[in-house]
């Protein structure tokens, strides 16, 4: 295969990873009031853990190109927030309700970060393209 836009595989992997991060953030925001997760407890915030593809790259013999990728999606283990709401059917004897440990502001900040990183990777693609086109125009006169 012609390698005409080198390094673009890394960028593509990073875009994939940021997309997954955005998906997880959307899941967190959508479940900000989910009282029962799959385990019956209040929904726990999910976090994405990135790693670069070092292992795969070492096996492939090229350890200089390290695309980032999503390793796993883990749970944020902070305790659920307790709010006082005695009218809630989920309230305990003292009127406290356990709600998911999701802070909407934190999610918004994460979303901004994901979006900006995505933008940065798109700028890399744009630049790689314009560099290639400029190089091709070298032959013209």
């Amino acid at each position, binding site marked *: 295969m*012609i390698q*005409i836009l080198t390094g*673009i595989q890394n960028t593509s992997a990073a875009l994939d990873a940021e997309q997954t991060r955005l998906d997880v953030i959307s899941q967190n925001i959508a479940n900000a009031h989910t009282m029962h997760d799959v385990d019956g407890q209040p929904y726990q915030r999910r976090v994405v853990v990135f790693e670069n593809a070092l292992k795969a790259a070492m096996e492939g013999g090229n350890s200089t190109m390290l695309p980032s990728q999503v390793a796993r999606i883990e749970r944020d283990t902070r305790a659920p927030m307790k709010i006082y709401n005695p009218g809630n059917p989920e309230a305990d004897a003292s009127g406290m309700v356990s709600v998911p440990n999701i802070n909407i502001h934190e999610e918004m900040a994460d979303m901004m970060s994901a979006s900006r990183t995505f933008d940065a990777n798109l700028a890399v693609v744009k630049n790689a393209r314009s560099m290639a086109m400029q190089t*091709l125009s070298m032959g013209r006169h």
Partner: protein
Amino acid sequence: MSPLSAIPAYASNLAAQIERLPGKSVSEIPSAMPNVAPVGGDSFSSLLGKMVSEVNAQQQIAGQNISALQSGQNVPLHQAVISMEEASVSFQFMVEVRNKLLESYQEIMRMQV
């Protein structure tokens, strides 16, 4: 049938015609430029054909990605767009090579004898 798939045949035809030009063929020109053995034993026309089929393959990958995306399969948008960009740049590269080739051919044809 991809629109580009006829081009390798066209390219080798063009190269064969250049070989058949009146006068000595390229391979008979004495050693003004020594050591210009074909790369890897391939003739120029087969190299050109290979390049064109590579570009064709890029175009096909882009086409597959786009139709997969449009038919609702799980292809990320950026991957489709990146493969389009790659196809576009390598096509541009092929066009530049062709322009350069025709330019040098015409330069030779204009030569005073």
